[in-house]
């Protein structure tokens, strides 16, 4: 058993009582199973051989009563195991969900939603089957095995020795089979996952496939994976075909040999027919737990792989972790200070931010501009501590963001992300996401400020219209405005807008911009924007280049001295503005192609 599986057992601790009851119930049903051959023997040896109808009747009734008792016990076993195993699964799912909620952006950047869902649903189920059900079965099987062996020897030593020969042979085959089949199953799962990845990509990327008419190429790719899967499936079949019938046959051959030897003993007069029948019944009782263990062993192979995947999540380091002595951040003025900040994403060979020194006074607006991939989003993500710096520090009102509680920090940062994710629920619920107890007036005020009020009223049920996967499909621009309202509603001291108007048409954008002064009034604001119309009004503009600050200053200052900035400005042809680059600049990309 793998160490991951042993660790998974700790989820059983809270349900140990149910599990123990389960074992007790199995034993009760086993006792019923063990007793009934005695009545079978009595039925034959006393009832039939000596022709006593009342014994025939009473033994038959006893057999039925024992079956009923055993049946009831095994029903209880099913129920108790379900209590134990589903209880453990419940705790496992909660634990993983908790963990996923705590893991930082760095983790979620690399994780695939589909895979995480599989872990929480089917991997948990596989582990549950073993930890909850399989374990009870296995413990019971071992106990039952011991009981059956004891009874066999008490009944007839000579036959018992023949019967016991079955054990090493069966166990040998089992071990061989489990050792071979385990890795084969694992490989099968790997190939199945590869096949499903192709399928997944073709569903998610259907437009790209169609746009480039790559259907034949995808078919080939899929067929390759499909053939590989088929080959693996066939070799699994082959191993199963070699192992399972052999396993059963060893048992039946054992029964045959015992019957032969028993018959010889009857001839010799040392054994009765009833005893032989009872003996073979016990032999079946001996074989049954062996098969249970066999299936259990196969289950272990599958469950350990799942358990390993679960602990991959549960053991993932929480890089953005709250210190034990973290204090709550009081309502801040909004002074944000970056001190020699370095950031390198996990797995990335180079730094995304290098040596950033920047002070943003409380209540001022800073615009962050720079080329694609220059680190703009990374920089603003550090303020609410979505990632931790790999060097230096980020300070809010002089507090290192790592020294304060995460919720008190994020409660004061309103963040509008590049992708506006909405949740299924009403428009109102989405706006009030960060403050579920907000009044209708507050929600509406936030929506008005974000230029969303008008279109919301045009929706069929206004603020109570359902959006998200199963609701009304909103356009990108509409989603973005709801996301802005969502950020404003928490009345943040610090507002971060990460390129939040890129998919809004220019009229809407202009409307938002005209409100911007009101939105950001009294708040410290970080605005990542491609368009300099926004930057022009900022108190401070930060120009990033390859993860470093190339220059800072006001729009006018930068126009006069930063080549990079002048190029950006000229690339946008800001109406009527003088955008002559400083004379020291090299040849800029040709700004304008008037025809």
């Amino acid at each position, binding site marked *: 058993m793998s160490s991951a599986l042993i660790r998974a057992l700790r989820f059983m601790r809270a349900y140990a009582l149910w599990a123990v009851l389960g074992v007790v119930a199995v034993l009760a049903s086993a006792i019923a199973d063990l007793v009934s051959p005695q009545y079978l023997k009595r039925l034959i040896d006393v009832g039939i051989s000596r022709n006593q109808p009342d014994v025939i009747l009473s033994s038959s009734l006893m057999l039925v009563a024992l079956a009923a008792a055993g049946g009831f016990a095994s029903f209880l076993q099913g129920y108790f195991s379900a209590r134990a195993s589903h209880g453990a699964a419940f705790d496992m799912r909660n634990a993983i969900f908790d963990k996923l909620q705590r893991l930082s952006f760095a983790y979620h950047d690399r994780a695939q939603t589909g895979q995480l869902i599989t872990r929480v649903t089917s991997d948990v189920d596989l582990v549950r089957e073993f930890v909850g059900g399989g374990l009870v079965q296995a413990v019971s099987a071992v106990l039952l095995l011991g009981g059956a062996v004891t009874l066999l020897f008490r009944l007839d030593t000579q036959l018992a020795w023949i019967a016991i020969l079955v054990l090493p042979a069966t166990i040998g085959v089992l071990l061989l089979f489990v050792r071979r089949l385990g890795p084969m199953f694992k490989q099968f799962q790997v190939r199945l996952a590869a096949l499903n990845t192709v399928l997944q990509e073709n569903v998610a990327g259907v437009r790209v496939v169609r746009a480039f008419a790559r259907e034949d190429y995808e078919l080939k790719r899929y067929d390759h994976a499909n053939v590989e899967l088929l080959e693996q499936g066939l070799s699994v079949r082959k191993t199963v075909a070699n192992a399972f019938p052999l396993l059963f046959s060893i048992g039946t051959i054992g029964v045959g040999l015992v019957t032969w030897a028993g018959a010889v003993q009857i001839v*010799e007069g040392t054994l009765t027919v009833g005893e032989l029948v009872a003996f073979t019944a016990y032999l079946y009782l001996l074989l049954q737990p062996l098969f249970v263990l066999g299936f259990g062993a196969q289950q272990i192979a599958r469950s350990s792989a799942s358990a390993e995947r679960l602990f991959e999540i549960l053991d993932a380091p929480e890089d953005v972790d709250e210190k034990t002595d973290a204090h709550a951040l009081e309502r801040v003025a909004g002074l944000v200070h970056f001190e020699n900040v370095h950031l390198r994403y996990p797995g990335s060979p180079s730094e995304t931010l290098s040596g950033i020194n920047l002070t943003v006074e409380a209540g001022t607006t800073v615009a962050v501009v720079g080329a694609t991939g220059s680190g703009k989003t990374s920089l603003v993500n550090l303020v609410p501590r979505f990632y931790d710096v790999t060097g230096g520090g980020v300070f809010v009102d002089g507090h290192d963001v790592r020294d304060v509680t995460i919720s008190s920090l994020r409660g004061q940062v309103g963040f509008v992300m590049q992708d506006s994710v909405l949740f299924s629920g009403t428009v109102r619920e989405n706006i009030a996401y960060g403050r579920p107890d907000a009044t209708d007036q507050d929600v509406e005020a936030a929506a008005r400020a974000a230029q969303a009020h008008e279109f919301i009223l045009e929706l069929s049920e206004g603020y109570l219209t359902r959006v998200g996967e199963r609701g009304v499909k909103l356009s990108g621009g509409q989603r973005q405005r709801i996301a802005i309202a969502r950020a404003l509603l928490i009345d943040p001291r610090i507002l971060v807008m990460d390129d939040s108007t890129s998919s809004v048409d220019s009229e809407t954008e202009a409307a938002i911009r005209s409100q911007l002064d009101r939105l950001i009034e009294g708040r410290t604001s970080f605005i990542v924007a491609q368009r300099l119309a926004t930057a022009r009004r900022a108190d401070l503009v930060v120009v990033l280049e390859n993860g470093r600050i190339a220059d800072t200053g006001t729009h006018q200052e930068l126009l006069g001295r930063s080549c990079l900035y002048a190029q950006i400005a000229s690339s946008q042809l800001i109406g009527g503005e003088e955008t002559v680059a400083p004379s020291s600049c090299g040849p800029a990309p040709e700004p304008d192609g008037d025809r």
Partner: protein
Amino acid sequence: MAGPGVSLRSIAKDERPTSTRVVAGRLMRYLLPHRAQVATGMAWLVASSAAIAATPALTGRLIDLATTAEGSGDASALTVPALLLVSATLVGWFAQRMQILTLGTAGQKALYQVRAEVFGKVVDLDVGYFEAVESGDLMSRLINDIEQINSFLSQGFRRLLSSAFSLVATLAFMLVVEWRLALATLLAVPIMLGVTRLFGMIARRAFRKRQEAIGDVSATLAEELGGIKVAQAFNRTDRNRSEFSSRNAVNRDANIGAATVSSAFSPVLAVISTSATAVVAALGGWGAAQGIITIGVVVAFLNYARQFFNAVTQLSSLYSDTQSALAGGERVFQLLDTASLVADLPHAVPAVDVRGRLEFRAVRFAYRTGAEILHGIDLTVPAGQTVAIVGPTGAGKTTLVNLAARFYDPTHGSVLLDGHDVRSLTLNSLRSSFGIVLQEPFLFSGTIAENIRYGDLAASDADVRRAAELAGAGDFIDLLPQGLDTAVGERGSTLSTGQRQLLAFARAIVGDPAVLVLDEATSSVDTRTELLIQNGLRGILAGRTALIIAHRLSTVRDAHRIVVLEGGRIVEQGSYGELLAAGGAFAALHGAQFGD
């Protein structure tokens, strides 16, 4: 004793049992190409069932011989039946092995075919289909349903046959050995069938509840994971945790309920079969006492009863498993039967020597479920010209360009390429003449070079390099440690949105397409990089037809013509200068963007 593997697991999924026969027949058709193997497998099945069914008779014979010779001490008469008994188990073993091998192989090959056909369909269906279904839902359905079919084709089918054969074989032996006891045994069968049906009904409810509960858990999870960054940003994690936990608890309780029902199933069957066995024993005992039958026959019957009821119990549980496999099969067939709304017409011809003249004639369009988006668009794009399409969000810009590449067909009117209705051309040749950059820059898992080469599988390394340069992606690629060979994730999540857009752009131009369609191709790219791209673009666009959608008006200044779309209608068109001078919708947009 109940047989192994009794489960009611999915007795309940299929609600229309009438269709099961049709679905089963259709599933069986996948085995048809492997009929030789199936036939061989069935022969082995018959052999193994017969061998196993013969053992109790041989055991009975052995015991009868032993009782007649009881006390004589001469066991030599036992040798022949004993050896027969042992050889019967050996035959049983080998036949079983062969039957698993042959039928299992046929099943796996049939499944390969099912998978291939499903994927063929996924590749064939029109884009609109994938918009109408939720992709997460579609995926999990495809995976789970195929898994159900898998378990049926590779196991259920074989076990069904095997149980049925051994039922028949056992019954035949029973009738031959002692027909009166055989009939007594059969009496229990209707009771067991009745119980199975009853449980089926109770279980159906319990299992449906369970299915809904786990569906709810997955859906919550999918949504929470999709928005996890927002949840963390807005301090919602505690609340989300308790919401998830309550759904999780419903799921736990539904599972315990379902397990309770199915835990009762096999014990009840076991009690019935044991009662029947006891009746057989009592009757047999009375008969033996009366001297009507021998004691060996009674012992043989005790074994037969076990075999017989094992088979019946197996069939009862397989009945439910089979039903759920068929339900899965039904949903898969539904997919396979869905016709693609955009497919090659019978007389479609390949587009050759495409010059790139595009014409929209009175085009109207509505999505599968929804109001009309485009209301009569007339637009001609002469070959080699660049036309920009601007307008507010939701005006129908993306829809319009999507019609050109035949992602959808117009509900009225037609789209023509070089004077040919696009519906008269083969899809492959039509789309191959387009280079399209979509709003959402989807990248496949693989390297950057592989993603660019997706636009032209025959592109050389130099071609890929050049496309990357032209797309303005060269600089950031050079900074990556493995350059073009850097792997990108499923959604290219190690790259920024802007960088992904640049790669999508490179992918579109690498194949030197006759028509270039840029749908907000650079919305997340900084303006300076965009300008660099535009400088490169001028060379690319020369002599090529292009449709460009952009919010940023600076992007569209170079276009030969700008078309302003509003509410699904063309409200204005002309050159940049003309439109500004006209002082209409475009001028208003322009003022909003550049004025203050």
